[in-house]
């Protein structure tokens, strides 16, 4: 069979040429993602992309974050789901502008979807944008959206070897959040140290924090990470720091 075209003939000639290209297949997405990032920067907004399996508690974490921070800064949310407006509705109920992207059958958000969403969002005065990606530990890792930071959630019900099973996703993380840690006593199979070890095996030196979105005190490491990220981001853009989560005024002060 003909090596070039599989046409079934032998000994015939094609006018062929082989062209070397060496062009990245994510190049177009990455270019658009950079455009999105410049748009976010122009508005001074820090953008955090949340990724995890379905059901790891991304929306719940966002609800708790809004409760803790919305008095001190302006938050907006972009929600990605295959179907329904449910998650955006949950955030809107907290008074936060939330745009829902329904991807249909697409298993991830890409830069073009976020770009389209930005046409429907007013970022003036917004300090912090969360992108809640489609729940999926595989596909979203490959697509830059224009975010500044990635937070990857690993709920303790999922097993502490997830980083070893999904290295591409966890390698993309700037922060790993072990979520639902209020259930640790009920799930003795999950060992946070084993999860940390699996992350270290990926060559990662990113912070790993434990949260329980239902308990305000358990959110502190997450809120502290956001504070620090906001300060760093705003300093880079030459903006004043946002006074985040000001300590409540002492009684009688």
């Amino acid at each position, binding site marked *: 069979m003909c090596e070039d075209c599989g046409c079934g003939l032998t000994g015939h000639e094609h006018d062929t040429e082989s062209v070397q290209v060496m062009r990245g297949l994510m190049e177009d997405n990455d270019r658009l993602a950079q455009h999105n990032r410049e748009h976010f920067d122009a508005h001074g907004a820090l953008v955090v992309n949340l990724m995890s399996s379905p059901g790891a508690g991304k929306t719940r974490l966002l609800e708790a974050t809004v409760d803790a921070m919305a008095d001190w800064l302006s938050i907006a949310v972009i929600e990605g789901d295959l179907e329904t407006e449910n998650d955006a509705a949950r955030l809107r109920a907290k008074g936060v502008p939330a745009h829902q992207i329904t991807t249909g059958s697409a298993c*991830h958000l890409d830069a073009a979807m976020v770009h389209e969403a930005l046409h429907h969002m007013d970022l003036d005065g917004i300090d912090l944008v969360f992108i809640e990606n489609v729940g999926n530990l595989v596909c979203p890792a490959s697509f830059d959206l224009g975010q500044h930071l990635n937070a990857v959630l690993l709920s303790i019900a999922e097993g502490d070897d997830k980083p070893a099973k999904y290295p591409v996703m966890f390698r993309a993380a700037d922060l790993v959040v072990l979520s639902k840690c209020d259930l640790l006593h009920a799930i003795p199979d999950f060992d946070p140290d084993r999860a940390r070890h699996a992350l270290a095996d990926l060559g990662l030196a990113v912070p790993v924090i434990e949260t329980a979105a239902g308990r305000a005190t358990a959110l502190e490491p997450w809120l502290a990470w956001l504070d620090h990220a906001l300060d760093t981001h705003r300093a880079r853009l030459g903006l004043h720091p946002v006074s985040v989560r000001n300590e409540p005024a002492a009684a009688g002060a």
Partner: protein
Amino acid sequence: MHELAVCQELLRQVSEVADRRGATRVLRITVRMGPLSGVEPGLLKRAFTIARAGGIADRARLDIETEPVRIRCGICGEESETAPNRLRCPDCRSGPVSLVSGDALVLARVAMERPGAADGHAIDGEEARYV
């Protein structure tokens, strides 16, 4: 399965190259990729047979060259091949490592039929770049 989305971008780039060079048909496409690209070679091939339909590459073959995951230790400088989830220096087991290869996802070559083409090889002039 984001491989279909990757395939669509692949075919868009291939069509661009083919158009620019006046090709009548694309015969072979070579993609170079590593395990840390997040793309599964088998799934990419299957998605390709769907995505190629009706275009200039509708009978093209997709060849995939996989590159190994290689790391270099930031402490001892040792370079080694490793598994995608073992990105630690096998010698000193500590320290930061840098990735030498294993996360590429690149359109490497396109073989085309073009009337009047001398059978040969070229670099796609204007657009050739290394990522």
